[in-house]
Each structure stands twice: as structure tokens, then as C-alpha cells.
């Protein structure tokens, strides 16, 4: 996997030759610059939504902005690319016209079939997919996937939530019941129940990643039911956080730091730190090192982090949260240690069994842990 990933001069010339006579009217300066400076690492980023959504896409954009500051990197991005054949064309365009050596399609739905179709046609380009599950032998060799165990941050946030809640009722506004979301819900609940065994989490699924009105309604409904700490897993937590602040309850954030939106109620939050991932990849490529196919990491590896605590968070709760954080940092924390039951009473992790963070079993989670009020069926 360490062969050169730069475009060969022949590929460049072939591309130009295909341009055709009619295109001679053009001003070629900006394209020439991209192809000429062949000592820069060229990274292309693709976002499924707007890059300033105060949430998922923004977290990636902030990572891209951080790596773009390095003067030996040329980074470019495209936002609002849907998960249809359009993303295939975007990827191809980034390779052909911008000379990208590595692409970061950051939405889950880009993987199958889009990356799987384009990657074999461009064997010299690296396709690093966020959230995917690379399988050796099954997927092309120039594909890789990376993700972070943000559920670790949610676990810590859950501790803070459970500790600070007066009613013992937590709320979770989620988009869809897919494994990555369920893992967050479960971790939040397990974290909360580790300091307050009887607390519950009410889940409302909105059905899609970005539905501001429905997210606001869900938040209001949850507050009506007595919930006093709320969190979410949607593309843009802005609505949930501001609605929670208006209703006067606490909240914990997700993706990015939303504390400015809720100065009174934002207790803490689970944040991505994609800058670290992108910088690491850039370094590896510059040095010509082998890029691993599967990158995963949590608090310890610095891929995710926990927001600073709000000043209202009590000393006792801070201690509990910090203790958990330390355990994650040292690698000693196992969240899924049996016996664990789901919310229908079924035993999902037997007594004595444990599933460490990297266990693939966790990536196909389809149940909600005991203490969660809600269902994965739609």
C-alpha cells in the first residue's frame, strides 16, 4: 500500500488532451497550479450537507480547515453532495481536475455502491471513508475507513447528565435507529445509570438526519414528559440545544461544541476531533507510509473529546465524569461488560462476557439497553 499515489504525468496529459478544441477559450492558470505543485499532498473532502450546520458536516469541515493550514497540504471540499451517482462524479472530478491523491467522502451512504464503484477505476488514489467498515479481501485495496468512538464521549456525557438530572429522566432525540446511533443512546444510558441506577432515557426518532421542526417538537414533547436533560444524534444539534435552553432544561451536545447556544443549560458534550485524524493521514501520505485500512479510536487516541463542563456541574459529578475519562484514557474501560439486558428483558451480553470497543459485534448493534424507553422498530 505504499506505492506512489501521485498522478503520473501521463495521466495529466491524457486528461488535458481529452479537453477538446472548444475548450481552448479557457483560462488555465488555476488548473495548472494544481497539477504543477506536485510536492503538496492533495486532499479532497466531500460533505453530504452544508459545511456550517453546527453539527456533523461542520465537524468534518473544521478538520479540513485545520489540515488545510499546513503549507504542504492542498485541501479542497465540496458540500451538499447527495448520496446518488452525483458523488461518484464528484469524486472522479476531484481526481481528474483537482489532482486529488486522497479523498474523504464523509457520509456513510457514500460507501456502497459509490466508493466501491469508483475506487477500482482509480487504483492510485486513496479513498478513505468515514464510518464505513473496511473488510479485507472484500473491498478494494485502495479503500480504507475511519471512525471515532464518540460513544465514549457520550458515556461521559451520560454520567454528567445522570448526575445533574433532578427527575432522573433523560431524553434523546435521534434520527434513525441505526447501529451508530443506538450505540450512542446505549452508552449515554449506561453512563448515566453507572452513577444513578434508576434513571431512564426516552428516545424519539425523527426519521431523518435534518428535520428542524420535528426535532423541536420532539424536544418539546420530551420536556413535557418530565425530561430534564436532553441530548441528540442528528446532523445539526442546534435546534435541540436552543429549544432545550428555551424550556429551561439541561442539555449535552454532539458533534461540535454548542455551548454558545445554551450558556445556562449546556452541561458538556461529545465532540469530534477530526483534525487529528486528517493530520495523521496527511503525515502518513507525505512520508509515504502504509495507510491502515481501518482506523478507529476514542478518547485515548484523541479522535473524540468531551466538552468542558459547565460551571453548574457539581464537584461530585465532575469527579465521577473525570474518573470515567481517565479510565478510557488508560484503556481500562469496558462499557459492555455482562450481564446486560436490553429493554425487552432479553440478555444481550451474558454475565462474565465483555465486548471491548474494537469488538465488531458492537458495530451491528440493533437493541436498546435496559432503561431506554423506546423501540428500534419503525
Amino acid at each position, binding site marked *: 500500500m505504499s506505492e506512489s499515489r501521485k498522478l503520473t504525468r501521463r495521466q495529466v496529459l491524457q486528461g488535458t488532451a481529452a479537453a477538446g478544441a472548444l475548450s481552448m477559450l479557457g483560462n488555465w492558470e488555476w488548473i495548472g497550479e494544481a497539477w504543477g505543485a506536485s510536492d503538496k499532498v492533495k486532499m479532497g473532502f466531500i460533505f453530504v450537507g452544508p459545511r456550517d450546520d453546527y453539527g456533523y458536516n461542520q465537524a468534518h469541515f473544521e478538520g479540513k480547515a485545520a489540515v488545510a493550514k499546513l503549507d504542504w497540504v492542498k485541501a479542497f471540499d465540496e458540500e451538499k453532495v447527495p448520496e446518488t451517482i452525483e458523488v461518484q462524479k464528484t469524486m472522479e472530478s476531484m481526481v481528474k481536475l483537482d489532482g486529488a491523491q486522497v479523498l474523504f467522502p464523509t457520509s456513510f451512504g457514500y460507501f456502497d455502491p459509490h466508493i466501491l464503484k469508483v475506487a477500482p477505476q482509480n487504483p492510485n488514489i486513496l479513498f478513505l471513508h468515514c464510518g464505513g467498515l473496511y473488510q479485507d479481501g472484500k473491498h478494494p485495496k485502495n479503500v480504507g475507513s475511519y471512525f471515532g468512538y464518540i460513544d465514549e464521549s457520550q458515556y461521559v456525557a451520560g454520567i454528567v447528565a445522570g448526575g445533574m438530572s433532578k427527575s432522573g429522566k433523560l431524553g434523546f432525540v435521534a434520527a434513525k435507529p441505526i447501529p451508530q446511533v443506538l450505540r450512542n443512546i446505549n452508552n449515554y444510558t449506561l453512563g448515566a445509570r453507572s452513577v444513578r441506577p434508576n434513571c431512564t432515557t426516552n428516545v424519539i426518532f425523527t426519521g431523518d438526519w435534518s428535520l428542524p421542526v420535528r426535532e423541536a417538537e420532539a424536544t418539546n414533547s420530551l420536556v413535557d414528559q418530565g425530561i430534564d436533560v436532553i441530548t441528540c444524534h442528528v446532523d445539526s444539534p442546534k435546534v435541540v440545544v436552543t429549544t432545550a435552553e428555551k424550556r429551561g432544561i439541561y442539555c449535552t451536545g454532539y458533534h461540535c461544541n454548542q455551548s454558545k447556544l445554551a450558556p445556562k443549560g449546556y452541561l458538556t458534550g461529545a465532540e469530534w476531533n477530526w483534525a487529528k485524524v486528517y493530520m495523521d493521514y496527511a503525515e502518513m501520505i507525505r512520508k509515504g507510509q502504509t495507510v491502515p485500512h481501518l482506523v478507529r479510536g476514542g478518547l485515548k487516541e484523541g479522535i473524540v473529546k468531551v466538552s468542558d463542563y459547565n460551571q453548574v456541574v457539581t464537584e461530585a459529578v465532575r469527579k465521577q465524569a473525570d474518573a470515567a475519562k481517565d479510565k478510557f484514557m488508560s484503556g481500562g474501560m469496558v462499557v459492555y461488560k455482562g450481564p446486560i439486558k436490553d429493554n425487552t428483558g432479553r440478555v444481550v451480553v451474558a454475565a462474565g462476557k465483555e465486548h471491548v470497543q474494537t469488538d465488531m459485534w458492537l458495530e451491528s448493534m440493533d437493541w436498546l439497553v435496559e432503561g431506554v*424507553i423506546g423501540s428500534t422498530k419503525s
Partner: protein
Amino acid sequence: MEVGWWGVLIAVLGGAIRIGTPFLFVSLGECLTEKSGRINLGLEGTLVMGAMTGYAVSLHSGSPWLGVLCAGLAGMVLGALHSWLCSFRRVNDIAVGIAMMLFGTGLAFFLGKPYIQPSAPRLPSIDLGAWSDIPQLKAALQINALFLMGIVVAIALAWMLKNTAWGLKVRVVGESADAARALGLPVDRIRILSTAQGGFLAGIGGSYLSLYYPFNWSEGLSSGQGLMAVALVIFARWHPVGCLWVSLLWGGAAALGPSLQSVGITGGYYIFNAIPYIMTLAVMIITCSPKRTLVGVPHELTVTR
């Protein structure tokens, strides 16, 4: 405090007002426009443009109410543009409406980029529920003055159309352009003015979304409210006060899905969330019939031809 199933009722009540207010303004605007014989499908673009303008002006000026006013003005400009384009012979107003939708939405997203991050001052609420001890009921009745204004506008509009000379002119133009011309009425000017006024109301409706509920400017803010308004006007039989009831009904139906989940009804939430649309369709099927066709429709509307 535990409210259980009462929570659903409270959510529906609160939702009727919370979610219904933008629909109220947009449908009143469309109602006025259609009374003059013009159909404006571009209100979706107007709504989004109003939302963005309101948010931006509120941020820059510090006054959310100024934002609301400017949102209305932006809507007025778009409405006037729509109607001016349609006043030319052979220009199809439904097609123009859809093109305006694209244009208005695109313009709003384009200009609105710098405003997604910052937090603008929010419109204040009025505590109608202060008499209650139940916090949930209090929250549900915490409404915005725009809702009350909307009620006033609905009544005023109804009165205006029935009792003033201007209202009569608008209605004549909407029923029969030929008759209007025979009377010497400037058909196009009246339509442009009505559509502009309609756009003004729609712009205000949009500003409610971004400055009050869900209080956010982002590119996913609207979920088709502008288009639905056209359906609501038909549903309301072109009566402004009917638009009020229909908007409340719609708002309540839209709040049903999430609130059912909060009490544990978790199955079929996609279907529950589609209830407003199913309900509108069902009502239209029941109340329309070939004999009566569309009672109350202004006959100049292209949808009747």
C-alpha cells in the same frame, strides 16, 4: 410532573399554535393572492427568503421585530416579481411559481451562508399560560405575538375582502378578468399588489421559523410549508378565517407524531409523521365533488381552467 397521555393533548395544543403560525401567515398570503386570481407556488422560496432576511436583519440590528418587518418586505418584492412576470400574456403562473421557488430558495441559501453560525436575537414570547400550575401547559401556551397578529390579520383580511371597495375590486378581478376590465379596473396592477401583499405575509411567516420556532437559520429549515400553504387555502375554501382553523389543525397534526413517541407509541412513526398530508388529502376527497367542484374558488385561477 408526570402528565402521561395528557402530554399528547398538550403537545397537540401547543403544536397547533407553534407549528401552525407560519402556516397561518403563508396561507393568508396565498389566500389573498388567489382571491385576485393568481396562484403563487413560489411561496416556498418566499418563505425561505423571509426566514433568512429576518434572521440576518435581527442579527445585524439587534432587533428581531425589525427582522420580521424586513422579512415581510423581502417577501413583498418576490411576490411582486412573481406577479409581474405572470402578468404577461401566455406566461404560466404555476411554472413561474416553481421557478420562483428555486430562485428564492437558492438566493436565500446563497446570501444566508454567513448567518448559519451566529445566534440572532430571538422573538419574545407571551405567557398565555401563566394561570396554570402545570409547567407543560404553561409551555404549550407560551406563544409568540405573531400568532395573535395572525389572528387579527385573518379577521381583518376577511373583513377587508367583504366590506371594502378594494376587497371588492380584488374579488372581481379574481372572478372574472373580463368583467373587471369592463369596469375599468387595472387588472394587472391589482393582481401585482395582491401578490405583493401575499408575499409580505409569507415573508413574515418565514421569519417566524427562523426567529422563534424552531429558531434557527439553516438550509433545512423549511419542510415544504410554502407548498402546503396552497393546499391549505383550498382546504379552507378561500376564507381567511378558514385558513386560521386549517393552520391550527395542521399544526396539531404535525405535533402528533413526536408526542406519541414520547409516551411510548414507537411504531410507524414515518406514517404518523405523514398524518398532516394524509389528513389534507382525505378532507379534500371528502369535500370535493364534480357537482360542486371547488366551492368558493375564484374563477380566474388557472387551476380551475
